[in-house]
């Protein structure tokens, strides 16, 4: 929207526009940063049931 409304002229004095990102996004970013700093010895984890897996392709030596 700001692109559409900015007009077709240049202003002489530049304005400092505050970042208006919402609080929730700020929290997530800050939490994410702190969590990344704190988790050691860690790994991605999505799969919650399979404990061990071996590809049949690998076993066949492909």
């Amino acid at each position, binding site marked *: 929207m700001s692109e559409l409304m900015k007009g077709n002229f240049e202003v002489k004095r530049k304005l400092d526009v505050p970042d208006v990102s919402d609080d929730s996004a700020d929290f997530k970013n800050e939490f994410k940063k702190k*969590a990344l700093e704190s988790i*050691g*010895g860690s*790994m*991605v984890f*999505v*799969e919650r049931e399979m*404990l061990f*897996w071996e590809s049949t392709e*690998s076993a066949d030596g492909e």
Partner: protein
Amino acid sequence: MMSHHGVSPEFQGIMDEITSIGLDWHSETLVENSKRNKPFIAKSIKDIASPQQKKAESAIIISAGPSLYKNNILARIKDSGYEGSIVAIDGSYVRCLKAGLIPDYVLTLDPHPTRIVRWFGDPDFESNLKGDDYFSRQDLDIAFRNNSNEENRRNIELVNRHGKDQKLVICSSAPMNVVERTEAVGFDAYWWAPLVDNPGSPGSLTRAMVNETKLPAMNTGGTVGTAAWVFALTALKIPRIAVVGMDLGYYKADTGYQLTQTYGPLKDKVGEDNLKDVFPEFTYPDTDEVFYTDPTYYWYRCNILDLLAASKSTLYNCTGGGTLFGDGVVCVGIDEFCAGF
């Protein structure tokens, strides 16, 4: 499905963020490191000789939570003359050596490029230390908090002395400096790929790593201690497995919320008066001691409980504290476990 403990929706929402944080942070590194490590991969965990006799009957996984020191666990294991298998994680390895307890296996998985090598004695200690206060904050082995060059030098010597031919269970995503350091020491390395998602899913990271390396994949539960339990259960096929030092939380009596890493953003989010909602408390059944957890530790806790349910096995928790109890977990004293109760 995660195993929960009646936490608030607010806490649940925060915890759900952890999975995406891990994916954002690690996904590229995991596959890149696995590709890059291929020239070093000579043996996999399938090449490890099956443990024999007492070593095949039971195992102790040594994680590195503060209870390890508070409860004098390492000395108690050593004094018991325990003859089962011992699996140390990278963060407890030096501590084991200092206690005169030589593990049968050491497991490492984290791909962090500068931190993990420190557990093996870091040849680039000073440059890797710059701008990182991880070790001065961590509560695993307080000897590491001082960031002392002298301590690191002693650790290098200790690992050099004991690491040769020591069985190392190393993840394909390990950082280059850990690979180089452990190879220089002469560890006997057995490789595996991390099972992080369903290999049948489109775009699976697990499948990509396995295709690159031809390694078997083991689930990690998101953390090195859980990976060590999965290793003992699935690769060594040991039926009775205990964990020690697996606190997955903080001692309420010793550690204020402000000492936890996520205190600042959580306080801003919920306010000082509501902090209890995001640091849920647990009373350890055997001692009635109170612990609390944060989103990261609670995530680890849910993960291991889910994997435990999936495995249909029993885990003996000899930590003597912390938050790990629930279905499939039997809390028992370490002396009792070592005596083969």
